[in-house]
């Protein structure tokens, strides 16, 4: 799973979000490192919807503009959990092996 995809799914993990909300959430989750642009975001959302990992939750009109909220599907939740566990296991292995070098405590 690509990092952008992982971050988008993570942004939706604790509730539905609209496009702009996902961008700000992803920026926050990544500590400001990843700032999604609209083209990248909607290509990813289109793919995630086609893959059945996210779905439209609801739509609102705010200040005359369409705001569509997305949420994880059960399959999306399962895939995100599996990916998070995989990354966690890899990170743990890396940190364990780095301990003797003294770089990490």
């Amino acid at each position, binding site marked *: 799973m690509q990092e952008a995809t992982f971050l988008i799914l993570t942004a939706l993990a604790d509730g539905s979000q609209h*496009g702009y909300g996902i961008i700000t959430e992803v920026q926050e989750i990544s500590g400001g490192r990843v700032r999604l642009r609209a083209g990248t975001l909607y290509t990813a959302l289109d793919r995630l919807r086609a893959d059945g990992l996210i779905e439209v939750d609801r739509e609102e009109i705010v200040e005359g503009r369409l*705001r569509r909220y997305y949420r994880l599907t059960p399959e999306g939740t399962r895939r995100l959990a599996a990916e998070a566990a995989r990354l966690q296991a890899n990170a743990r292995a890396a940190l364990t092996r780095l301990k003797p070098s003294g770089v990490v405590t």
Partner: protein
Amino acid sequence: MTGSPKLERRYRRVLACYPKAFRRESGEEVLAVLLATAAEGQRRAGLAESVDLIRGALRMHLGLSRSPRPVRNAVRLMCAGAVLTLAALVTVLVTLGRVRAGYVQDPDAGPWPTFVLTQIVPVLASAPIGAGVWLWLAGANGRGYNWARPAFTAFAGLLTTGLLIGFGEGGGEDALPSTWPDVTAAAVLWLVGLAAVVLIYSEAASPYYQRRAATRAATPANGTGR
């Protein structure tokens, strides 16, 4: 939310690059996000932003956002085929002076204008058409049209025939000299086509074409290919 009417018009112009079905479904939503992320007083779309949007539009036209990996790779190969075809055209144009110099020194050669008409012009005319066919079939396969697979196979068959004829003739009396770069270029193009055929008929690709066909059959009014 920021964004002047001028900025909105400019964003709409860039969004016009997207497939119609996507614009109908998500155009206003993307526009709202673009305006929400615009800086205060911003009057035009930034270069990086425009490149990102155009890249996204291209990916959607080519079906790269929804297709499975083998189809995505096949589409990329088909795009490479288009680029290689156009590269052949550029090569002919760049080396034309050298070819002419060699040709006019040959006492047995026919008139140069005849050679240009029979050998050079067909190459120059067919390259853009060939590149167009590569791209058209790339888009059709990327969007999962069932007919696109046999169509591309037939196209690859034409490439094979062309390659075999090229090998067989070894160049007629007035033909362009068949140098090893020509043969290599034709063989590379053929291999690109062959690899794409293998990918679109792979086990992981077939369900995608069947699913897309079923989706289109279920929603004929919205069967725009996305």
